[in-house]
C-alpha cells in the first residue's frame, strides 16, 4: 500500500515537473516571438530608443552583440540556450542584467503579493463566516460587498485609501517607507478585489456544504452551528478558493503594476510598466517569465494542497 503510494507520488511529481517545464518553455517561446513583433529596430531600442543619437556604427555593434542580424530561428535558439543558463540578457534602459533587476525587484513584489493573498483569504473567510444563509438581506449585502470589492479598480481604491487613511486620518504613510506601516495600504489595495472573488466562491461552496445531506446528518448528531461551520463546511468552502489562489497570485502581480506605481514601491510591476513604456524587451520578457514561473509553482502547490485537503482526488488519480 505505502509502496504504491510512494510510487504514485513519484509519478505525480514527475508528471507535474514535466508539465511545468513544458508550460515554462512554451511561455518563453511565446514571449520570444511576441516580442519580435514589437515594432521598431531592436538595436535602436537597445541604445535608448529613437530619441538617442546613436550612430550607425553603434547600431551595428549592438546588432552583432545581441545577434539581431541572425535569422530568427537562430536568435530563438540562442535565447533558449541563454535561458537554460538563467541568462535573460541585459536591460536596454537600465543597462543591467535582467536577472539582477529581477533579483532586486522580486522580493518586494513577492512580499506584497503574499501578504495581500493572506489578507484576502482572511477577509474572505471573515466575510464568509459572518454571513448568515437564512437571511435574505444578509445574502444581498454579502453579494453587494463581494461584487463591489471584486469590481473596484486598484488605482481608484488606492486613491481613496490614501485620501482617507493618509491625508485625512494620518494613520498610514501614503508611500512605501520600508516599515510595516508602509505596507498596509498597498496590501489592502491589492487584497480587496481578490477577497471579493474568494469570498464569492467560498460563500457559494459554504452554502452548498451547509445544505448538503452530510450537514444535516452532522446536525442530527448534535453538532452545533459553529461546529458545523468550522468542522465541516469550511473545508468545503476553502477548496475552490484554494484552486483560485494560483490565479489570484497572477492577478496580484498584475495589480502590483498599479499599486507599486502609486505607493512608490520598488518591484516587479513597476519595472514592467517602465519597461513597457520604453519598450525594454529583455525586462518585459524577464518579468513575464518570472510570473509564469510563479504561476506554475503556485499551481503545483495549490494542486498538492487540494489533494491533501480533499481525499477524493488523491495523488493516485489523474
Amino acid at each position, binding site marked *: 500500500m505505502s509502496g504504491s503510494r510512494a510510487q504514485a507520488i513519484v509519478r505525480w511529481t514527475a508528471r507535474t515537473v514535466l508539465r511545468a517545464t*513544458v*508550460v*515554462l518553455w*512554451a*511561455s518563453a517561446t*511565446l*514571449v520570444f516571438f*511576441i*516580442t519580435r*513583433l*514589437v*515594432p521598431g529596430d531592436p538595436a535602436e531600442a537597445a541604445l535608448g530608443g529613437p530619441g538617442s543619437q546613436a550612430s550607425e556604427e553603434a547600431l551595428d555593434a549592438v546588432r552583432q552583440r545581441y545577434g539581431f542580424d541572425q535569422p530568427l530561428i537562430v536568435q530563438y535558439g540562442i535565447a533558449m540556450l541563454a535561458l537554460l543558463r538563467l541568462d535573460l540578457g541585459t536591460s536596454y534602459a537600465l543597462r543591467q542584467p535582467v536577472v539582477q533587476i529581477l533579483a532586486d525587484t522580486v522580493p518586494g513584489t513577492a512580499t506584497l503579493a503574499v501578504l495581500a493573498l493572506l489578507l484576502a483569504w482572511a477577509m474572505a473567510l471573515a466575510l464568509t463566516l459572518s454571513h448568515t444563509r437564512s437571511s435574505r438581506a444578509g445574502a*444581498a449585502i454579502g*453579494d*453587494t460587498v463581494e*461584487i*463591489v470589492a*471584486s*469590481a*473596484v*479598480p*486598484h*488605482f*481608484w481604491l488606492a*486613491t*481613496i485609501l490614501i*485620501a482617507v487613511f493618509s*491625508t485625512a486620518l494620518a494613520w498610514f504613510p501614503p508611500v512605501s517607507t520600508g516599515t510595516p506601516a508602509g505596507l498596509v495600504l498597498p496590501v489592502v489595495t491589492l487584497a480587496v478585489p481578490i477577497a471579493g*472573488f474568494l469570498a*464569492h*466562491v467560498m460563500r*457559494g461552496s459554504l452554502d452548498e456544504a451547509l*445544505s448538503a445531506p452530510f450537514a*444535516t446528518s452532522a446536525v442530527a448528531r448534535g453538532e452545533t452551528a459553529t461546529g458545523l461551520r468550522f468542522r465541516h463546511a469550511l473545508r468545503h468552502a476553502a477548496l*475552490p478558493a484554494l484552486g*483560485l489562489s494560483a*490565479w489570484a497570485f*497572477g*492577478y496580484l*502581480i*498584475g*495589480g502590483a*503594476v*498599479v499599486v507599486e*506605481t502609486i505607493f512608490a514601491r520598488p518591484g516587479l510591476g513597476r519595472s*514592467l*510598466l517602465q519597461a*513597457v*513604456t520604453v*519598450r525594454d*524587451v529583455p525586462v*518585459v520578457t524577464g*518579468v*513575464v517569465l518570472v*510570473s*509564469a514561473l510563479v*504561476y*506554475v509553482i503556485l499551481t503545483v502547490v495549490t494542486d498538492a494542497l487540494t489533494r491533501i485537503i480533499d481525499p477524493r482526488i488523491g495523488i493516485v488519480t489523474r
Partner: protein
Amino acid sequence: MTHTTSPAVDPLLAVPTPGRRWRRVTLGEVVAVVFAVSLVVASVAPGFLAPQNPAAVAPLDSFQPPSLAHPFGTDESGRDVYTRIVHGAGSSLLIGLAATGIGLATALLLALVAVFGGRFADAVVGRTVEVLFAFPALLSALLVILVLGPGPVAATVAVGLSTAPGYARIIRTSLLRVRASGYVESARLLGHSPARIVLRTILPNALSPLLALATLGVGQAVVWASSLSFLGLGAQPPAPEWGAMLASARVYLTTAWWLTVFPGLLILATTLATTTIGRSLDARSAGWGQSGPSGQSGQSGQSGRPS
C-alpha cells in the same frame, strides 16, 4: 428509489408549475437593469441625458465643485463632469463590449477547435490555454500593448485577448458537458446527423451561458481598460472615457476630489450592475436547465479569471 422531499423545501414548490420557473426579481436586479438601461441610453443618445457639449471648454469656469449647475462639478478646463461622464459611457461601454467580444470570440474559436478538432487539437489548445493562464491578465495585456503601442484600440484588444484563456476554459467545459449529456445521446439515438446535433443541440445549449458570461465580463473589462488608461496605456484624454478621465483626475485629487470620485463610482456602478445582471441570468439559466453554467460561470470570471 424514490426521492423523498428534502425537509427544508416546501414540497408544493417542489412540484413545479410553469409560472414558478422564474425566481422572484429582487430589488437589486431592478436597480441594476434600470442603471444598465440608462447606460445604454447614454451610449446611444448621450444628448438625451446631457444636452451640453462634452468638449466645450470654459477655462474661467474650471475646478467648480459639484453644484446645481454642475452636479458632478467641472474639470481643469471648465468642462462639465456630468456631461463628460454621460458622453463617456459610450466609449467606456464600447471598450468593455468590444474587449469582451474579442475575448469571447477568441475563446469560442479555441474551444471549438479543442472540442471538435480531435484529440490532438484538444491537447494543443489545452496546453496553449494553460500557457496563456500562466500570464496574469494585466501582464498579457501589457504584452499586447508592447506590440501594438498604447492607445484605446490596443487597450481593448489587450483586455480582450487577456480574458480569452479564462473564457476558453469555461466554454470548452461547457461544450464537453453538453456533448456528453443525455440529450445529445438521445439525439444520436434518433439518428440525427452530427451536423444537426452540433447546430441544434450542442451549440445552443453550450453557448447559452455565454450571455451571462459576457455580461459579467463587460464590467470587468471596463475596469481593466480603465486601469490601462490610468497607466497611460489606454484611451487618452481628452476622450471622455472614464478610465482616462480618472487617470487625468488623479493629478487633481487633492484639490478636486469630485473629478476622481464620480467617474470611479460610475465604473463601480457599471460593474455592479453588469455583475448583478450576469449572475441573475446565470442563476436563471441554471434553474432552467442543468446545462446552465452553475458553478462554472457562477464564479464566472473567477473560475477562469475575471477577465
